[in-house]
């Protein structure tokens, strides 16, 4: 199988004084081209660590992460990252922030302008192109960060709880906008969240992780068509999947859901 992203038996340990802490253990995962994958799990399950490894900001203790078949050894513009804290450069305007990666790539000025403008328009910040981040609301900052990540044309977007700091209304709005942007500009997305609704609403596939040690607990397909709207959010299919994911996140026992199903005695198994 030629996956876009391939994680093979990744283990990550951190030194905590003299102790060591296992953030990830035996994590293997394939993500297909243009898939929208969400990762959900309790805090401490290593989901951010997994993302940092794919971004090249951290190295696994053992195992490897492959992108297009090549081993990830450091950060690169082929993988755009969107952080929870927005991470906009506060001394640059929205436009200059979006142009940052293009400048690094030495894109000529005219083209740089045009590409930045395109993505500023896509995320709906046209009226704020010359504003500094301090003038923007949290939702607008995150949209600017999304435009900045898109501008360097990465084939992969890695998003680490990007809407986690936003209020519920803004979050729903941005989820819909993100799907809208994604349907127009298809990319492979790995989206980390602790919000079960968000995980189901956005994804082709939800990966549920468990903590101590951080590992993949369950993988749940969301076989429902895009575009997804409010109607989808209120549908019974959504509710069913949401319940399944919820159960998997909040009632974890055993090594993984799959193990659990096989080790359970047949009379207790769900039909």
């Amino acid at each position: 199988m030629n996956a876009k992203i391939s994680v093979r038996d990744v283990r990550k340990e951190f030194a905590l004084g003299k102790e060591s802490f296992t953030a990830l253990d035996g994590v293997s995962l394939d993500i297909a081209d243009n898939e929208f994958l969400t990762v959900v799990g309790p805090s401490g399950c290593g989901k951010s660590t997994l993302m940092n490894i794919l971004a090249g900001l951290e190295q696994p203790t053992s195992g490897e992460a492959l992108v297009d078949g090549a081993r990830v050894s450091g950060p690169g513009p082929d993988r755009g990252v969107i952080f929870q804290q927005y991470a906009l450069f506060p001394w640059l305007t929205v436009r200059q922030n979006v142009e940052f990666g293009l400048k690094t790539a030495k894109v000529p000025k005219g083209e740089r302008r045009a590409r930045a403008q395109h993505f500023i328009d896509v995320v709906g910040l046209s009226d704020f192109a010359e504003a500094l981040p301090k003038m923007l609301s949290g939702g607008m900052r995150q949209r600017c960060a999304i435009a900045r990540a898109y501008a360097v044309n990465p084939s992969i977007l890695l998003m680490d709880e990007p809407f986690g700091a936003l209020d519920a209304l803004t979050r729903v709005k941005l989820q819909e906008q993100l799907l809208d942007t994604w349907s127009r500009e298809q990319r492979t997305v790995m989206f980390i969240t602790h919000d079960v609704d968000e995980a189901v609403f956005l994804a082709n596939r939800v990966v549920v992780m468990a903590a101590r040690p951080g590992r993949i607990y369950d993988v749940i397909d969301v076989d429902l068509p895009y575009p997804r709207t409010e109607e989808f959010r209120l549908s019974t299919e959504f509710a069913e999947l949401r319940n399944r994911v919820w159960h998997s996140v909040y009632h974890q026992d055993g090594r993984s859901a799959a193990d659990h199903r096989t080790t359970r005695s047949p009379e207790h198994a769900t039909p």
Partner: protein
Amino acid sequence: MAVISDRTAGSARRNRTAQASRARAPRASLVLNLASVAFGIALWWVLAVAGLKLPTPPEVVSRAVTLIGDGTLGKDVAASLTRVLAGFALGTAAAIPVGFLMGWYATGRAIVEPWIQFFRTVPPLAIIPLAIVLMGIGEAPKIFVIFLAAFLACVISTFQGVVDVDRTLINAARVLGTGDAGIFARVVVPASTPFILVGMRVGLGSSWATLVAAELIAAQEGLGYRMQSAQLFYDLPTIFVGLISIGILGLLMDRLLLLAERRLTGWQERR
């Protein structure tokens, strides 16, 4: 979208009212400032008339007119300003690269830090006897101690600024494909500018303090020298003219730096 633009319109309105009340506030405090200064001068006058050994304000003003008229004050101010500016310029010019070196490279820090920590505990004035023995009584020792004062104040805060650069911003630049040189020039330098400017203001203050002491010891002209020789003749009005000139010049230079700070670091979110 409608929700978001409504909200921005609301916050713009709030900003306008906030600006209006802020515009009123400085006018009120300016009136208070002037009243306070007038009261201080009046108190001084009363004390002088009441028999304290002080010159009255008119005596000081007429002395100032004389000193300006015969060119003494102009020459003294020029001599003092040249020393301060030369020492301050050299001090900050050396402090900024050294501060960056300390903040960016652990090795650089380990080599430079003990010296800085040591000299920080020695007041620059304590270096004057040594500087005079080694450099004679010309301009060199005076500029050197001012240099030292400015350097020590500025190097510490530059270093602190580099160390405190938000890791997320550095990571954001890295994932956009920016290398170490680019991160230094485009993230670390702008992010630490506020710290550098604060350091420069502190440095300017201690340069000024050191100047007068340096001139008290061995000089043929300068505000400190003028006050020293006035002391020998019990010439209080001249001492007052010197003190007031130093205060006004220091204040002017500080305001200039503050203006530069506002322009260069207006992107900061102030709480």
